[in-house]
């Protein structure tokens, strides 16, 4: 380091530590008071590269600011100074640009598992604003006559601390020089490339950028789902094929359905849904149909203003619906009930401490330990000892990203969250396949019982291990059998809190045993509201009506979600789901129904169970 380089504006700069390395060259910190970085090319720069940099210097884009004004180069790592190796400025080496400390690549923001580690306090509204911001930057680039070209989630950095979005890799942009010459963009990322761009170095247009931008916006708002993700009926086909053919569930037709467990399309603001349809349904064939970057920016700002707060969890933001302007139908509550993990957890702004570190794993250990403790505390809404399996797994992931070892992490979780309930001894009849050929050796047992080591009092089935065939032993070590019905692990205070997750794919449901034999319940006969059998223990979940007075089978203990008790239910026709405890009775209703408006205190209403 300490290399001296000569800028085209007459200054001399010194390189400091390496910030990153790419295919083309190395990015260094520039010594000095202004936060700047320098990209130095590994190979000798071609004449075209050099001229392109000089053209970029002369034609910087102006970016709209939040207050409505325009500022040159806000949020964009544009070449500010062209650097040379010699004082005569004959051998170009690279360029200097603004540096944004502790910025993260955009994919770390939209993937909840990563975002919650260092930016757990961001809300869905913040994500809208963030998307609006990078749309504004693209709009500024377009106004100057350039194209971004290679739009992808690694080229957008987000600095949580500076509350700024930064577009990097600007030297790959397609640049239109003042004299009208076009310097092409030579790279492309297939997940963001519109169908009309056949090759990576094809000429770009504002419309091809608009397509890629819409993909990125979709990923940010849906926490990572690609607009062409889906379940395809018939033969499997790759994402690139679906993009080429315009096969997207957004179209609402064709052999593709929305992937399960993603944010429902209907949960987006209507204006945004319309823009996505233009971008991917009409826009697949007709580039002119796609909304421009400026349209995205203003629609996203408006959408962010239109979101409301969930009534149950203050950190959830949702789009209100016309039939229920202050809706209880929170997609994030529903998602938490379904997946066991709240992706917008309650937390203060303490994660900003983590966000301030470019590499949290390199922070002093006491800090990392404190952050991890806060993470565990943030997950304890349901009370001590009530972590779901998924929350536990996420916490171990967070520990790994903070470079804390698993043993330590599990110890802290147990200390803060209370001891995990021992996994229920599986209601095995242990499958007894043929015994192993030789006497079983001591196996590397407990560590494999994910995610928690076997409880100190190893249940009897652990000791059976030696007598079982190896493969089924491995199966046992993965965990006890799953509890039917659809994963209430997240919220079930009575269930084993660290029970493994039920496999999510429909094919992957092993023949489960309910924890207790099913018992009969009846839908309460009295009441005016429709009673529904819900897909998940939440009023936000989809439901089908059940007849009042109907006899049903309860499959297990009630669980508490959002302050209500829900009972897992199977109907006589075999359908499964959840019904609120308040709507059920364990006693068969009297055959002669009370008059319709008779008060019901005397109706038989033994509470199901506590």
């Amino acid at each position, binding site marked *: 380091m300490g290399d001296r380089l000569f800028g085209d504006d007459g200054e001399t700069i010194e390189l400091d530590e390496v910030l990153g390395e790419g295919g083309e060259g190395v990015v260094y910190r520039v010594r000095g008071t202004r936060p700047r970085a320098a990209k130095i090319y590994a190979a000798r720069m071609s004449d075209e590269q050099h001229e392109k940099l000089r053209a970029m210097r002369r034609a910087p884009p102006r970016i709209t600011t939040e207050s409505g004004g325009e500022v040159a180069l806000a949020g964009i790592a544009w070449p500010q100074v062209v650097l040379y190796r010699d004082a005569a400025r004959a051998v170009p080496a690279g360029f200097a640009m603004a540096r944004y400390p502790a910025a993260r690549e955009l994919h770390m923001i939209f993937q909840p598992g990563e975002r919650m580690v260092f930016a757990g306090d961001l809300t869905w509204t913040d994500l809208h604003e963030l998307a609006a911001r990078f749309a504004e930057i693209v709009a500024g680039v377009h106004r100057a006559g350039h194209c971004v070209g290679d739009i992808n989630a*690694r080229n957008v950095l987000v600095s949580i601390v500076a509350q700024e979005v930064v577009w990097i890799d600007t030297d790959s942009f397609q640049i239109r020089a003042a004299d009208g010459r076009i310097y092409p963009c030579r790279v492309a990322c297939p997940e963001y490339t519109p169908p009309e761009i056949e090759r990576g170095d094809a000429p770009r247009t504002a419309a091809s950028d608009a397509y890629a931008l819409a993909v990125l916006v979709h990923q940010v708002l849906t926490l990572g789902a690609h607009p062409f993700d889906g379940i395809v009926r018939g033969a499997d086909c790759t994402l690139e094929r679906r993009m080429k053919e315009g096969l997207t569930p957004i179209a609402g037709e064709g052999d593709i359905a929305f992937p399960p467990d993603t944010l429902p399309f209907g949960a987006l603001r209507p204006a945004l849904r319309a823009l996505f349809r233009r971008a991917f349904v009409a826009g697949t064939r007709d580039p002119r149909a796609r909304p421009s970057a400026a349209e995205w920016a203003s629609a996203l700002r408006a959408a962010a203003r239109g979101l409301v707060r969930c009534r149950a969890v203050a950190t959830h933001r949702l789009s209100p619906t016309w039939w229920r302007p202050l809706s209880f139908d929170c997609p994030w509550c529903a998602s938490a009930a379904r997946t066991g993990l709240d992706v917008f957890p309650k937390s203060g702004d303490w994660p900003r401490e983590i966000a301030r570190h470019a590499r949290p794993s390199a922070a002093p250990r006491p800090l990392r330990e404190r952050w991890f403790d806060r993470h565990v505390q943030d997950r304890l809404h349901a009370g001590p000892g009530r972590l779901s399996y998924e929350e536990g797994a996420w916490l171990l992931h967070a520990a790994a990203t903070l470079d804390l070892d698993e043993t330590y992490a599990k110890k802290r979780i147990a200390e803060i969250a209370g001891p995990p309930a021992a996994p229920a001894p599986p209601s095995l009849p242990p499958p007894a396949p043929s015994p192993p050929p030789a006497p079983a050796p001591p196996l590397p047992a407990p560590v494999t019982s994910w995610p928690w080591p076997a409880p100190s009092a190893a249940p009897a089935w652990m000791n059976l291990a030696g007598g079982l065939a190896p*493969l089924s032993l491995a199966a046992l*070590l993965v965990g006890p059998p799953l509890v039917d019905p659809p994963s209430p692990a997240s919220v079930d205070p009575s269930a084993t809190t660290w029970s493994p997750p039920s496999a999510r*794919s429909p094919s992957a449901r092993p023949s489960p045993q309910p924890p207790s034999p099913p018992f009969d319940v009846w839908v309460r006969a009295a009441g005016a509201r429709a009673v529904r059998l819900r897909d998940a223990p939440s009023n936000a979940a989809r439901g089908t009506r059940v007849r009042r007075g109907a006899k049903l089978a309860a499959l297990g203990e009630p669980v508490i979600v959002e302050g209500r008790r829900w009972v897992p239910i199977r109907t006589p026709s075999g359908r499964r789901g959840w019904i609120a405890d308040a709507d059920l009775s364990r006693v068969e209703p009297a055959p002669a129904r009370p008059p319709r408006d008779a008060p019901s205190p005397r109706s038989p209403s033994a509470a199901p169970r506590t």
Partner: protein
Amino acid sequence: MSNEMLARVSVNILNRERRQPLILLLDASGSMVDKLGEVERGLAAFRASILEDTLARSRVEVALITFGEAVVMHGEFVEATRFSAPPPFAAGATPMAAALLFALDAAREKRAACRAAGIDCFAPWIFLVTDGEPTDLPRWSEAVAAVRDAEETKSAAIFAIGTRDANFERLRQISPGRTIKLRDGGWPTMFRWLSTSLKAKSRSRPGDEVLLDDPRKPDGWALAP
């Protein structure tokens, strides 16, 4: 094969990134006892290296299967941050054919689970490392046929790595193109190579050929066979 176990192959639906599954298929027969330390250090270095890459750690999913006394799948496919290798253990024979068939089943299940969740999935890599030869020869031809079929349909890519004493004739039968002889003490380099290659692969598009660094170059981890 134990369907009961494979029924547990699932996918973290909150992570929508494309997946690159990796099955580490490690020999745990009695003769491996001396090399366990190297394997353990290699696995730790492998994990640390994947963890550094914030995108690869969301895309690479690792499952560890050992074959020795028995074929054992240690846990499930997990994202690289959640991967932790069990304490090493070696004893018994080398049921390589059973292990390969099992790994192919696991690979198939993983792809099916991804598909059911609407998540894109690259062809899983099966990284077989052995110091001997299969002892379950009656199933060998079945295993070879299954592996070849998986390679042809691009539903898995098999790397067959042998130490100096391994039976390379057998290894070449399962993976003619990717049979590599491991240099003595080459374990750390091999695992580093694996993580670098996975990082490159996880960024390509499904079906693309990715040029991997040649392990046979002078400072690589392979011996010319």
